[in-house]
């Protein structure tokens, strides 16, 4: 992207400014748009268990079950290779939304990083190897809000 250099400079400047001004400003700096292609969380994506993926993705954050997010996915997916999933929430100040497929070889499927201009409403199509719980986690107010749903898969999407 042609604006990368520019936005990187701006972020760095704001971040340094925030360091000087104290912790209140650091909260602002971390909610700024992230740099393009700054961080693919390899540890979390390569984790082989749901717990491992969650703790690598969101270390130390408390998880609460919540009805404030709407996870939309089919109850039965005929083709596990293409399972449409969407997550919506009215929770304030959403920093990120992550999707996990509990029984996939690598449970973490995707993380969406949101900024204050975003509306917390995302959709994606996922692969599911077998019938499994699908877990959506919304990071808001320093906590993780979780919703889950079982998706029955008749033809798996990971095999060859």
């Amino acid at each position, binding site marked *: *992207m042609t*604006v990368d250099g520019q936005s990187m400079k701006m972020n760095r400047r704001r971040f340094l400014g925030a360091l000087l001004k104290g912790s209140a400003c650091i909260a602002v700096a971390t909610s700024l748009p992230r740099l393009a292609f700054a961080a693919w969380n390899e540890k979390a994506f390569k984790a082989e268990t749901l717990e491992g993926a969650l703790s690598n993705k969101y270390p130390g954050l408390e998880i609460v079950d919540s009805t404030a997010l709407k996870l939309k996915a089919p109850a039965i997916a005929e083709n596990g290779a293409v399972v449409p999933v969407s997550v919506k929430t009215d929770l304030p100040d959403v920093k990120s939304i992550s999707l996990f497929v509990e029984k996939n070889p690598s449970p973490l*499927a995707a993380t969406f990083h949101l900024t204050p201009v975003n509306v917390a*409403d*995302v*959709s*994606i*199509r996922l*692969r599911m190897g077998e019938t499994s719980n699908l877990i959506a986690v919304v990071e808001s107010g320093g906590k993780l809000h979780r919703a889950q749903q079982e998706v029955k898969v008749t033809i798996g999407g990971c*095999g060859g």
Partner: protein
Amino acid sequence: MKIKAKVKKDVTKVKMLIKHAMETGRRKDQDGNVIPGLYITEVSASHNGQPVFHAEVGQAVSKDPYIAFSFKGGVAGDKIAITWIDSSGATETGEAAIK
């Protein structure tokens, strides 16, 4: 890649369809050899040059990924640019105007 962006009551919904094999690295070819993994790892979007969205994705995303997100403040005619990078470092950028 195909990008559609539509504004309705101050909320712009952006939908993208990216052409990519998204090889998981777990599939085998006819001779039983493992096909090496090659999948998109990150997708970023900007609105008139300002970043508005960033996603990290893994092997569990379907072939030819479809992703949608929404943001506030877009106006018809504004430029949306989307860039992805895959595990081999290949990238592609696509652009569309908000309708």
